[in-house]
């Protein structure tokens, strides 16, 4: 039975091979040309080959060389950040910054177990006012503040 001794190396190896496949497949219809006159597909193909070779080397290493364990996945932190950013992306265009910022702050604050509701709400209000004034009013970035009614 062969064990993976270096999880970080194994993860990286899979990533490299996956990227190589995407490169090869995604540039399949581009002309390759030759070294003296390279087409747009030349470098991606070359890179895909190098990625696969390196991926194999790292896969071999992950069976041979010991590495540190990767550790548990912090679902709470990850979910709060992903949720917050997706909510922001979704709301900034449809509802405006005055909605998107507080929702973002509340979401990402949930990632920290020790935060209680009152400081979260205060932070959300403070950051909304500060960012709206600084970025939209003073710096004139073209971000919608409020998309409802007037």
């Amino acid at each position, binding site marked *: 039975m062969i064990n993976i001794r270096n999880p*970080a190396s194994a993860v*990286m190896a899979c990533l490299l091979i996956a990227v190589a496949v995407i490169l090869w497949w995604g540039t399949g219809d581009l002309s390759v040309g030759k070294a003296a*006159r390279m087409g747009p597909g030349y470098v991606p193909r070359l890179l895909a080959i190098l990625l696969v070779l390196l991926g194999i080397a*790292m896969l071999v290493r992950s069976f041979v060389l010991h590495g540190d364990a990767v550790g548990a996945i912090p679902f709470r932190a990850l979910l709060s950040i992903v949720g917050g950013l997706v909510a922001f992306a979704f709301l900034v265009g449809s509802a405006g910054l005055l909605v998107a910022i507080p929702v973002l702050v509340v979401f990402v604050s949930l990632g920290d177990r020790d935060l209680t509701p009152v400081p979260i709400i205060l932070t959300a209000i403070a950051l909304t006012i500060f*960012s709206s004034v600084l970025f939209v009013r003073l710096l004139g970035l073209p971000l919608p503040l409020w998309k409802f009614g007037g």
Partner: protein
Amino acid sequence: MLDSLAQLAGGLQVALQWDNLFYCFLGALIGTLIGVLPGLGPVATIAILMPITFHLDPIAALVMLAGIYYGAQYGGSTTAILVNLPGESSSVITCLDGYKMARKGRAGAALSIAALGSLAAGVFATFLMGVFAVSLLELSMHFGPAEYFSLMMLGLIAAIMLSESSLLTGLALVLLGFALSLVGNDVSTGVSRLTFGYFELGDGFDFVPVAMGLYAVAEIIRNLERPESRVVLKGTVGSFWPNREEVRRSIPATVRGTLIGSVLGLLPGGGPTLGSFAAYMFEKKVSKHPEEFGTGIPEGVAAPEAANNASAQTSFIPLLTLGLPANPTIAMMAGAMMIQGIQPGPQVMTNNPDLFWGLIASMFVGNVLLVIINLPLIRLWVALLRVPYRFFYQAILVFCCIGAYSVGNSVFDVYVMLGFGLFGYLLLKCSIEPAPLILAFVLGPMVEEYLRRALLLSQGDPTTFITRPLSLFFVVLCVVAIALMLKRPVATLFAKRTIQAVDG
């Protein structure tokens, strides 16, 4: 040389104009702030501030961003000395002796030695840049596509050496960075590559959301995962005046640190982190009492702090003379220049002399301002260190979201930032530092372009890289660097020593 000095004097006039002076001060202040705060570095900060610089005059924008960069070197030392945590990666090594000095009640003296050493180094490096920029520019005239290609390879290999990963992991990061840089329209033919139907990817991944993801978002997830333990030094900072003995020991160390830092800043792939490590190691080597290092001696603070400031400044030289960003922070500066419509490279000095000399001269001014910001205001920074991280990260995320959105006025870049944030977290989880990846990502289009041109000129003959003398020189350095890495992983060695010393 006299001509350069006259130009530098002209630059000083530009730097001393009221608005440039203001932005220099602002940059130095923000730089100190983020330098003091662990978890937020210059790359992420410059990315966040990028949308603000759209509205500024190019000189003001670059003066401010440069101030952030070298200001962070000052601020980083404060955290290293008082909290035993590196505020920036370039002050990792300062923790060793700086914190021990603070424990002995010499915190004030250590802070002064760091700040004044940085000032001396900064002034010297600025002077050096002014004097040698012209000669380096002349050297760069001899650069053809083959030389550029080999030099970029050397830079990337240097970045791998410096990151604390193995050769294989480093190479993997570089190749991934190249792969990411391929997305978008091909420079030579205009054919769209790997965009998979997303028109937002026509110009490739924008650097700003990528850097925000890798450096800010990933770091935040990491910090949420492990509760922080930050113990600010109890008791007083003590007198800022170093005693006679400390002065006597600091001065030669500062001089050596400055020289080493200045030279290593010029290397592609080099910069403050490399500079500070090398200066500390060298100081230990030449010292008559190497066993005293790590016990809280002034040389151990003076040398790395002088070196990191000197390298932060000289690392602008490859950008301004060759158009090559040497490290991720400088790559952000390159991005800021391009937003302002200035192509980094040898033409900056001839086309925008005010910008070139004004930027260099602003570093004189900025360094003086930094000593004022850092020493008398030390209580403010100490107070700031007592504020827990959880009151900062929401603000960082809000600024990142607004910044990412403003890049192209679309939510696409917010998703790009999120994607790279998750990827960056995966890297951190595997204890991999993203610097080689981001450098390869920035250099990617240039690497491809110069490879194509070099092989076009040589009619497909790859020996062009070793038959041209200057290119051969870089190739030999690459081979030596790889051989060194295979023999003994230098960076890992550094890392282990640091960790042992910090623990102990």
